């Protein structure tokens, strides 16, 4: 299985997609950081400070949660699976590993590593920029306070689980464009609606996005009422559940089909 996981990683790292994805992720993270830095401490229209100031201990956790690039690991997961069908390399893959369940398992294993790799890159980049900003802004930095370790672990776990989620989705849908559009619309539109409004969170908390929020324990007061999320471990279980469900369903359907 180690060999198969290594082969899956080679598949990703021998094409150019991964660094394009890494660059876009870092660019978007930078945009978010610029926004967080420039608006830090600025008063909101109603006179209340909308965001904590740079020297406020609450600012750093906020900046760190901006490191979450789960959309990118989800896309990589989708492509890792659907790319095989798009370029018909699935034929060679199944010739090399005819026990098809092992291919899916290896992709999930590679997804864990890819998700972790992107999470670490994003977290390190964010940490360097954010800590510098805090120090320049005259604040003190304590990386063990204010739930910062928990946030970092949350980002890591969410990005890993979204990679698995993407792989499962890709195995199920197979058509790359459909899977990408479906995944992105789901994550950005449907889920953000269902998991932002506390009234809808009874449903939303059971979806991957709500589960991810729970995992990171992002519980900001959005002014829309008290949020209704699962505990962090519950969020993790829900995400793992989705990945496994998709993988199992994929194993029962897609991977049994004839490759012609």
């Amino acid at each position, binding site marked *: 299985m180690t*060999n198969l996981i*290594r082969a899956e990683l*080679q598949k990703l790292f*021998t*094409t150019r997609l991964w660094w394009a994805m890494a660059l876009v992720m870092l660019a978007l993270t930078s945009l978010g950081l610029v926004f967080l830095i420039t608006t830090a401490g600025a008063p909101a229209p109603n006179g209340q400070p909308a965001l904590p100031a740079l020297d406020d201990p609450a600012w750093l956790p906020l900046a760190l949660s901006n490191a979450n690039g789960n959309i990118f690991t989800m896309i990589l997961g989708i492509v890792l699976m659907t790319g095989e069908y798009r370029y018909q390399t699935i*034929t060679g893959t199944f*010739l*090399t590993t*005819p026990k098809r369940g092992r291919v899916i398992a290896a992709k999930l294993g590679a997804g864990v590593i890819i998700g972790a790799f992107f999470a670490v890159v994003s977290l390190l980049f964010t940490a360097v920029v954010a800590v510098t900003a805090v120090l320049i802004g005259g604040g003190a930095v304590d990386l063990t306070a204010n739930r910062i370790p928990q946030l970092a672990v949350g980002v890591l776990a969410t990005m890993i689980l979204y990679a698995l989620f993407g792989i499962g989705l890709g195995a199920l849908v197979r058509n790359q464009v459909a899977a990408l559009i479906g995944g992105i619309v789901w994550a950005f539109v449907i889920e953000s609606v269902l998991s932002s409004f506390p009234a809808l969170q009874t449903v939303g908390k059971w979806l991957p996005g709500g589960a991810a929020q729970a995992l990171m324990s992002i519980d900001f007061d959005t002014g829309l009422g008290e949020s209704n999320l699962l505990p962090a471990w519950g969020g993790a279980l829900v995400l793992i559940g989705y990945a496994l469900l998709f993988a199992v369903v994929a194993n029962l359907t897609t991977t049994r089909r004839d*490759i012609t």
Partner: protein
Amino acid sequence: MTAIEIRNLSKSFGAVRAVDDVSFTVEAGTVTGYLGPNGAGKTTTLRSLLGLVTPDSGEALVNGRRYAGLDHPLNEVGAVLEATSFHPGRTARDHLRIMTTAAGLPASRPDEALEQVGLADAARKRVGGFSLGMRQRLALAGALLGQPKIFILDEPANGLDPAGIQWLRGFLRHLAHDTGAAVLVSSHVLAEVEQTVDNVVIIAKGRLVRQGSLAELTGNGGGAVRVKTKDDFAPALRAAGAEVEEVEPGVLKVRGLDAEEIGRLALDQRVLLTEVAHERSDLQSVFLELTGEGAGA
């Protein structure tokens, strides 16, 4: 043990019976040509053999086992499939490295295989820029990675230039006759394999039409003799028990009598023959005849 064994294999796609109760075997040390016109069911048979397509009934075995049950498939079977696809952004060498990693083969194999198929110079080029012939060679390199003793090749000559085809012929003969491998190679262009194969299996519309050694199939062209005469010779031939077909005005195709018997009959009947010759039955005409493509041509 029989290297490749196909036993009563059937597979339908919807209403199309792509392969219909086909059985044949391929022994070690021989090259078998799997021939048939487009849509005959060749690819479907080979894909069933490789576990990519699940047959409706029957069995397709390599070394007595189902391909999907093999623990080290690349070490037992090398396959080149029609329209083998590669990721265009990946280099030839990386493509082989991924297979090598997944199959747990020595890291030296990609370069050795590329060398063997004459692609060493293009090893670090992206496959997207490869010609069809280069892709075929790369696919063949993939089949060689695990140094298997069984080769299953679907139209491997597609896209090769005459020199490439010549090279492929020699290479397949070498694999079978020098290394003792069993080679099953499909084609719809007979000329490609005619000089390579020891045995022939012919399939048309999903059904096996004929199998045997090349010598058996081309042997005496089914015993037909071509006769040219301006006289009305057919009734006499028929009376002598021959089967006669007027191929074109003045040209008869005669079965059931050999050239000497026909000559004697002509002498008796005072018929002037301008040509009497055993039909030179190359595989092409046998093939066209057997697959029904020759009718009307």
